């Protein structure tokens, strides 16, 4: 097979000069087009970012003005400078941190445990097809049930504290995790299964070499979904237990009619949840580097 360079090498000097002249022109044109494209792309993202920032600023300014001028009820909706003041005071005197710490801890433990347990359950269902046949309708029913409604039972059973909040979070995340991952296990292309079966692979080898690594992207994606679900479990759990945590602050603020406390806790939850989500997204990128799906 001859490639274009070799062909060019076989041609007379004059023709080559001509061709290379045209090539330079073409290269210049292409560089120019690419530069324009990059400029446009940069402009679009700069514009999007500027709009995002202005929207946020406008919202905060409007909220502040509305609160101070009593366009809205400041008792109910508070306003940003009051929130900031509240956050600043509690950060400085240190009273905020135990709440943040407790909530973050419960969330992390809850969602890791939920994802892990869900994966193990999915593996068991895959290993014993008869079990999956039997439990299929139960999983569907459990999945459509509001799991947080089981909260009171856990609190009585495990005591009002860390354990029952983690248990509620586990319940919220585990069923959907099991269903998602088990479905992925079953969807692995039968061609891959055939490849290892033809080499005489045992069921354990099939799982270890094909099913589990093939489901990796779905497991990580489930981790992302579970970050969000775990927050629901933890906050509701703290509502019910009402001892410590950001959820407790919200329920306490509600009871003493301190909505500045309620809203400032929400702001903290927003910040911490975003950080956790970004961490998982980063983890996903690290773990699935190198290979991608066809």
């Amino acid at each position: 097979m001859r490639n274009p360079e070799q062909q060019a090498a076989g041609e007379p000097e004059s023709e080559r000069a001509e061709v290379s002249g045209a090539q330079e022109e073409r290269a210049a044109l292409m560089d120019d087009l690419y530069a324009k494209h990059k400029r446009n792309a940069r402009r679009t993202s700069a514009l999007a970012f500027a709009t995002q920032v202005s929207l946020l600023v406008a919202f905060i300014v409007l909220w502040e003005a509305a609160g101070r001028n009593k366009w809205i009820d400041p008792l109910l909706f508070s306003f940003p400078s009051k929130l900031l003041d509240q956050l600043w005071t509690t950060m400085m005197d240190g009273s905020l941190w135990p709440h943040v710490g407790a909530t973050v801890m419960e969330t992390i433990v809850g969602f890791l445990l939920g994802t892990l347990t869900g994966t193990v359950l999915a593996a068991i269902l895959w290993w014993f097809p008869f079990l999956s046949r039997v439990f299929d309708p139960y999983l569907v029913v459990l999945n459509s049930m509001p799991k947080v409604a089981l909260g009171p039972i856990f609190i009585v059973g495990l005591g009002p504290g860390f354990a029952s909040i983690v248990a509620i979070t586990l319940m919220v995340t585990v069923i959907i995790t099991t269903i998602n991952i088990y479905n992925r296990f079953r969807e692995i292309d039968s061609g891959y299964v055939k490849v290892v079966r033809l080499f005489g692979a045992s069921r354990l080898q099939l799982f270890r070499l094909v099913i589990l690594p093939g489901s990796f992207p779905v497991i990580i994606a489930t981790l992302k979904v579970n970050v969000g679900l775990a927050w629901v479990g933890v906050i509701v759990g703290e509502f019910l237990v009402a001892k410590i945590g950001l959820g407790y602050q919200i329920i306490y603020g509600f009871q003493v009619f301190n909505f500045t406390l309620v809203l400032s806790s929400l702001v903290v939850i927003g910040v911490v949840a975003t950080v956790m989500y970004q961490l998982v997204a980063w983890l996903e990128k690290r773990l699935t580097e190198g290979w991608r799906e066809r």
Partner: protein
Amino acid sequence: MNDSTALALRRLSHVYVGDKGASLAVEGIDLAVAKGEFVSLVGPSGCGKTTLLSLLAGLFPPTTGEVWLGGERVFGPSPKVGYMLQQDYLFPWRTIRDNAAVGLEIQGTKSKETMKKVDGWLEELGLGGSGYRYPHELSGGMRQRVALARTLVTEPEVLLLDEPFSALDLHIKMQLEELVVETLGKLGKTAVLVTHDLSEAAAMSDRVIVLGRNPGHIRKEIAIPEPIRSTDPIEARKLPGFQTLFEELWAELDAVDEGKGGESHA
């Protein structure tokens, strides 16, 4: 069965049973493949070609009849049999080297020494330097060559080829046909190829078996005459007798369609 037989099917029938009922896939198949022989199975879709190959590989037992490999009956997948699928099915999360070594890993023979053999095969099949790349970085033809390396490193005595070239461009396909025939010939391996492509069957094989359908049965065996038989696939296609041979096969397949195989088929 004598010593020179590598593979044999004896009065073999297979019924697929599913939720919609039972269907007879193949019936009364008797076939023997000699050591070092290259046999092709051709026939219309639904004639049970892939079923026969799966039965030979021991993926599932036949409903009645026997499968023999060398002097032993087949009851499950054996390390003596290698299988190439229509698609490469390389694992996207493994490097080329680790993909080619997956058979060794499963059979528990992966070691520094056998990994050298893996590298040797990759080199031999024109994939030297690609060992640490990932499948998505390779072209379709290269990937199918990795699949061939994966099949060969476990040193099977018999190769079952399930339309391994059908998804490739004509040019790449002919190159690979050549590579496979040359490699298998050098090692003296026995091969059974399933294909839709009559010229591929004629160019690569020592013997072509035409299957009929409803249910799958052996309709005709055509021994490939010299010199086509001993000429490599690309050159064989240019030989004077090749066109006649191709037409003979074509006529057989046409007869399958017009004959009793003509009734409606799911």
